[in-house]
């Protein structure tokens, strides 16, 4: 493994991702220690990767914050209480219902008994044996308090079991709500700024789509007017069955991709494996983009170049074609610009095109090119 300017970026990635053998790692570390630029590259890569991971952490934190403020984080518990409440109401209702039935039954049986009692002289007057009389009373006693209770109790408990099962299932479905997501898209993607749902028409094929609720989120970036710089990201696809097909249309015409889009209205169509579909209209907003600033410094005709800047504090930077910083000058609001004399960090800057960047302290910036002849 030879460390060169050409493969350094790739090797740094392998090194940081732990894809190097011990021998490769030692060799790489030795090479890095001897080259200041490579060492800086490595430090920069570590900083960038660390920032990306911190950003992921920031998105997670924001998601939790949203879940807490929307009450979703407490919903699991509330659902438990709610379902518990429902269960109590149901059990009580069942109890009340059966106690009503029970009372009615007792009343009925009492009147039946009274009737039997009233009729007894007639019965006795007939030639029934005593055993037959006992049978009659046994038949009646089946419906008395002691005998009825276990049946009702068993019945109520039976219902209670059903209720408990329902509770458990409901709880499970709440818990697993997010698990049903078919596509492993993070919920951490930036939220869409404008998306208008225009149609939720489901197409019926083999499967009835009436009960299929496909949903997805979108995120759109702006584009400079007259340029194709907009992007649309579809994420958090849920419902239906994977695989999904995503298609984008503009004015009824299918676009080539979801990237490099001009400002305007677009229609996203997502179709699942059963041909159930969901459409959503989104807008790529057009923004006026500041023209890149271009300067020419011709050594033959000028010794200095006045570059006008906004009356704010900031820093003016020039980078060469390898994006290495070759010039930097801080300025304040009173300067209203800088005077460039063609000198970089290491003396006269060679002829060529330089990338220009002006960063103001209020976080706004300007970009452009400076050509030295």
């Amino acid at each position, binding site marked *: 493994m030879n460390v060169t300017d050409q493969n350094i970026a790739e090797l740094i990635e392998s090194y940081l991702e732990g894809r190097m053998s011990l021998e490769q790692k030692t060799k790489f570390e030795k090479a890095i220690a001897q080259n200041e630029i490579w060492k800086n590259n490595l430090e920069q890569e570590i*900083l960038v990767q660390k920032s990306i991971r911190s950003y*992921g952490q920031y998105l997670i934190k924001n998601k939790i914050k949203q879940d807490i403020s929307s009450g979703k984080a407490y919903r*699991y518990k509330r659902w438990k209480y709610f379902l518990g409440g429902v269960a109590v109401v149901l059990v009580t209702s069942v109890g009340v219902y059966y106690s009503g039935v029970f009372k009615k039954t007792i009343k009925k049986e009492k009147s039946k008994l009274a009737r039997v009692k009233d009729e007894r002289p007639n019965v006795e007057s007939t030639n029934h044996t005593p055993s037959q009389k006992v049978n009659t009373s046994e038949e009646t006693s089946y419906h008395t308090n002691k005998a009825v209770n276990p049946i009702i109790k068993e019945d109520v408990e039976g219902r209670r079991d059903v209720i408990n099962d329902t509770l458990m299932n409901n709880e499970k479905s709440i818990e697993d709500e997010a698990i049903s997501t078919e596509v492993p*898209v993070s919920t951490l993607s930036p939220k869409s700024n404008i998306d208008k749902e225009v149609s939720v028409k489901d197409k019926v094929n083999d499967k009835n789509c009436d009960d299929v609720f496909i949903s997805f989120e979108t*995120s759109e970036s702006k584009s400079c007017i007259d340029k194709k710089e907009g992007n649309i990201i579809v994420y958090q696809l849920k419902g239906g069955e994977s695989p999904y097909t995503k298609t984008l249309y503009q004015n009824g015409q299918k676009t080539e991709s979801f990237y490099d889009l001009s400002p305007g209205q677009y229609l996203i169509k997502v179709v699942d494996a059963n041909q159930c579909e969901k459409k959503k209209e989104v807008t790529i907003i057009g923004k006026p983009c500041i023209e890149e600033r271009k300067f020419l410094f011709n050594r033959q005709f000028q010794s200095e170049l006045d570059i006008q800047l906004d009356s704010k504090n900031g820093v003016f930077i020039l980078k060469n074609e390898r994006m290495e910083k070759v010039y930097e000058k801080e300025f304040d609001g009173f300067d209203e610009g800088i005077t460039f004399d063609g000198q970089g960090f290491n003396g006269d800057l060679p002829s060529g095109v330089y990338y220009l960047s002006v*960063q103001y302290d209020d976080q706004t910036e300007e970009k452009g090119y400076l050509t030295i002849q």
Partner: protein
Amino acid sequence: MTSEDIKISVQNGREDKILGKLYRRVLPKAVRYISKNGGRKEDAEDYFQDAVAAIFEYSLDASKAKIENVEGFAMTMVRNRWINQAKKNTRFAYTNDDFDPSVNENITELILTEEKEGALKIAFQKIGDTCSTLLNMYYFQQLKMDKIAELMGFSNAKTVKAKSYQCKKKLAEIITDNKYLTDVLK
């Protein structure tokens, strides 16, 4: 629940499952503990958010040791932070609980400061939504390039690799060109 469970869930876009468990098992305890000790519900929620987000970041780092009991760990982080805060601030009541030193200080250091959050917002706003999502998917969620291509509508993994390189370069320029960002994000 272990840190490995968190890693797998995030890689499968199912972090909601893990968060749901933590909302149910840790958040009520954290609120109860802090309220009982003179703090507000909001304090408990803030500490909970910070602890869970830091545990997520820790869990996704392959070089870090495994956490066997994430729920217990998160609760200890909340408790430790409250004890530290209570010592500094008279608004909070002191607690008789002991500070638990078993919680790895490396995780506590991962808790995002407001300043760092501000710097991250600036840097990632500048690289745009596409780059932010792509870099997040690759470096935080650790999804494979071909999966990212499928999810983001790129033609193949190669395109994702090229785009990710551009995005990372853009981010590097933004961070290194701004001393404030470099210092805060270091």
